[in-house]
C-alpha cells in the first residue's frame, strides 16, 4: 500500500514537470522574439580564413524592429578601402517578399537584388545572408530534443526543419540543431546540415554580453566543415534602444 502511495505521489510530482517542458517552438520564440530591444547599432569586424589566407571586413550595422515580427537592417562597409561605402539594406515583410538593396559606390547606383538566394555567402564569409539576418520563426518546424550538457551548461537541444521545400532551397539548410541556454535564451552552438543531410557548418558562440538587460551574441565563430575555412564575427560599440531614425532604413541613407 505504502509503495502504491509513493508511486502515486511520484507520478503526481513528475507529471507537472513533464507537461511544463516547453516545446521547441516556445523555446525558439523566446530566442527569436526577444523583447527589450527596439533598435541596435554596432560595429562588426569579420575575419574570414580559408587555406591560410585571411580577409578582414569592417561593417557598421543598424537594426530595428519595425513591428513585432518584422525587422529592418542596414550594413555599411568601412574596410577594406576598395569596398568602403558599400551598403546593404534589408526590409523584412511578413507577407510577401523581403526587399534587399545593394549600393555599390563604384557604380553610384542602388541595385535591387533578388529576395531569395539567402543561402549565398555574405561578403565571401562562411555566414550566409540568412545567418546574419533575424530568422523568421515560421520558416521552421521545431522539436525539443531535450536537455543536454554543452561545455558544462544545461542546454535545450532544438531541431529545426524547414517548413517548406522553398525555405530549404533558399537557405541551403535541410536541418539545423540549436543548443539553447535557458538562462539567457540565446544559442550557444548550432549545427547546419546541407540539402543532402551532411553536416556543413558549425556555429560557436564565443561570447554573450548583457546589454540593457538583453543578452546579445557578441562573438561568433562559423566553421565550415566542408571547406575547412572559418569566419569570425566580433561585435563592438554596441548600443541598444538609441531611438534610431527610421530614415536610416531607407535607400536614401544607403547611398549617402
Amino acid at each position, binding site marked *: 500500500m505504502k509503495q502504491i502511495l509513493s508511486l502515486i505521489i511520484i507520478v503526481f510530482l513528475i507529471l507537472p514537470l513533464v507537461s511544463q517542458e516547453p516545446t521547441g517552438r516556445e523555446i525558439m520564440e523566446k530566442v527569436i522574439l526577444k523583447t527589450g530591444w527596439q533598435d541596435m547599432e554596432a560595429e562588426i569586424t569579420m575575419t574570414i580564413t580559408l587555406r591560410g589566407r585571411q580577409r578582414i571586413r569592417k561593417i557598421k550595422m543598424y537594426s530595428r524592429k519595425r513591428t513585432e515580427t518584422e525587422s529592418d537592417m542596414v550594413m555599411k562597409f568601412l574596410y*577594406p578601402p*576598395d569596398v*568602403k561605402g558599400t551598403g546593404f539594406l534589408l526590409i523584412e515583410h511578413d507577407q510577401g517578399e523581403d526587399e534587399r538593396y545593394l549600393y555599390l559606390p563604384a*557604380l553610384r547606383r542602388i541595385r535591387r*537584388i533578388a*529576395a531569395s538566394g539567402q*543561402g549565398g555567402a555574405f561578403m565571401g564569409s562562411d555566414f*550566409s545572408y540568412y545567418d546574419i539576418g533575424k530568422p523568421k520563426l515560421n520558416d521552421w518546424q521545431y522539436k525539443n530534443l531535450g536537455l543536454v550538457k554543452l561545455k558544462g551548461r544545461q542546454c535545450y537541444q532544438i531541431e529545426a526543419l524547414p517548413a517548406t521545400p522553398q525555405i530549404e532551397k533558399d537557405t541551403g539548410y535541410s536541418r539545423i540543431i540549436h543548443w539553447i541556454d535557458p538562462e539567457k535564451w540565446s544559442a550557444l552552438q548550432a549545427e547546419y546540415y546541407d540539402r543532402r543531410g551532411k553536416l556543413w557548418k558549425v556555429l560557436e558562440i564565443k561570447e554573450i554580453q548583457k546589454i540593457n538587460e538583453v543578452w546579445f551574441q557578441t562573438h561568433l565563430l562559423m566553421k565550415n566543415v566542408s571547406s575547412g575555412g572559418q569566419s569570425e564575427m566580433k561585435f563592438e560599440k554596441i548600443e541598444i534602444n538609441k531611438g534610431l531614425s527610421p530614415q536610416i532604413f531607407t535607400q536614401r541613407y544607403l547611398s549617402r
Partner: protein
Amino acid sequence: MRKRKRQLIAWGFFLLVLGANCLPAAPDFQGYLKFFAHPGLTSPYRFNRFGTRLQLTLKKSQQLVDLFASFNLDLDERYRNSSNQINPDMMTSFKIYPVEAYLFFHWSNLDLRLGKQFIFWGRTDWINPTDNITPWDYTNITAEIEDYRLAVNALRLNWYFGLSNLEIVFVPYFQPNRTGLEIPGAQEELPEQKPSNWQEGLRFSSGWGGLNFSLSYWRGFDLFPSVVPENKALKIKYYPQQVLGVDFDYAYGHFVFKGEGAYYRTQDSTGFDPLVRNPFIYYVLGSDYNLSSEVTLNLQYVEKRVLKWQPGFMSPHEKKVTRSVSARLAYKKEGYYSLQLIGVYNLADGDYFLLPIFNYEIADGLNLYAGATFFAGPENSPFGRNKDFSRAFVEIKYSF
C-alpha cells in the same frame, strides 16, 4: 575648351578649400593608385594607352553639409596612330582633373547636391532610355564607371515624403557623349551657353506592394551628335529633345524584373526633316535571375521604334524598328575574384559589343582587373563603326 577645364578645376578647388576650412569635423582622405595598360585590339591600334593614376578623395561631413571632392592625377602615355601612318605619334601628358566635387546639404526631408556629380536615372542594366544627364565616353570603356561616364556640373534637389521622392535636376552647361567621331573639316557646334539652353528635369519615384517605380521628364540636348551640311561644310550639332520616361523593378523569388521606357520628342515633330532625328520610343524589359548564390544572369530585350516615319525623308542609316538583346553574366566569389561578361547584340545588323571583366583580389584593398572591350559588326552598324575602340585592359589598383 581649355578655359572650361580651368573653370572646372577652379570650381573643384574652391569647394575643397571651402569645405576643408568651414566644416569642423575631421576630413576623411581616401583614394587609390593604379597602373594601367589599355592596348588597342584592332590594327592599326589607334588608341594604345599606358599610365599611372592617383585618385585623391576628400570627404568631410557634419550635421548639415558634406563635402565630397575627388581628383585624378593622370600620368598618361597614349600612342595614337592615324590609319595612314606607320609611325606612332606618342603623347605623354600629366593631367589633374576633378572626377566629382560637390557640396551635399541634407535636411530632414530634403537633399541638395551642388557641383560636379554623377546623376544616373533608370533601373535597367547598362541600357537606360531615361538616363540622359550624365554623358558616356564610348572611347574609354574599362572596368570602372569613372572612366566611361563624365560627371556634370549640376544642381540636384531631392524631396522625400513617405515612400516617395521627387528629384529636380538642373544642368546649366551641356556636355555631349565622347564618341570618337572624327569627320575631316567638320566643326563641332555645342549649344550656346544661355539660360534658355539649361537642361532640366524631374523624376518622381515611389513604391507600392513591392513594386518600385519612377516617372521622369527631361528637357535637354541629344547627347549624340548629328552631322549636318551647312554652307557647303559639315557641322556636328546637338539638337534639343524632351524625354518622358517610366521605369520599375519588382522582385519575386530568384527574379528581379526590370523595365524602363521613354518617349523622345525631338525637334523634327513631323518626320520630314532627314537631318534631325524623328521622335521615337525606346524601351528595355528584362530580369535578373539568381542561378545560384554566386551566379547572376541578366537578360534584356531592347526595342527602339521610330515614329512619324516618312519614306523618302529618312536618313539611310535609320531603321523604323531596331531590336537588340543584352546580357550580363556575373560570377562572384566575394573577397577572392569575380568575372562579368556583358554583351549587347543588335538583331538587325548583327553587330555587337562585348565587355568581359575579370577581377582578382590579391589582398585587402589590392585588386587586379583584366578585360577587353570589343566592338564588332558591319561598317555602318552602331557597334561596327566603333571597332577601332576595341581594346584590352589590365589594371592593378591599390586602394587606401
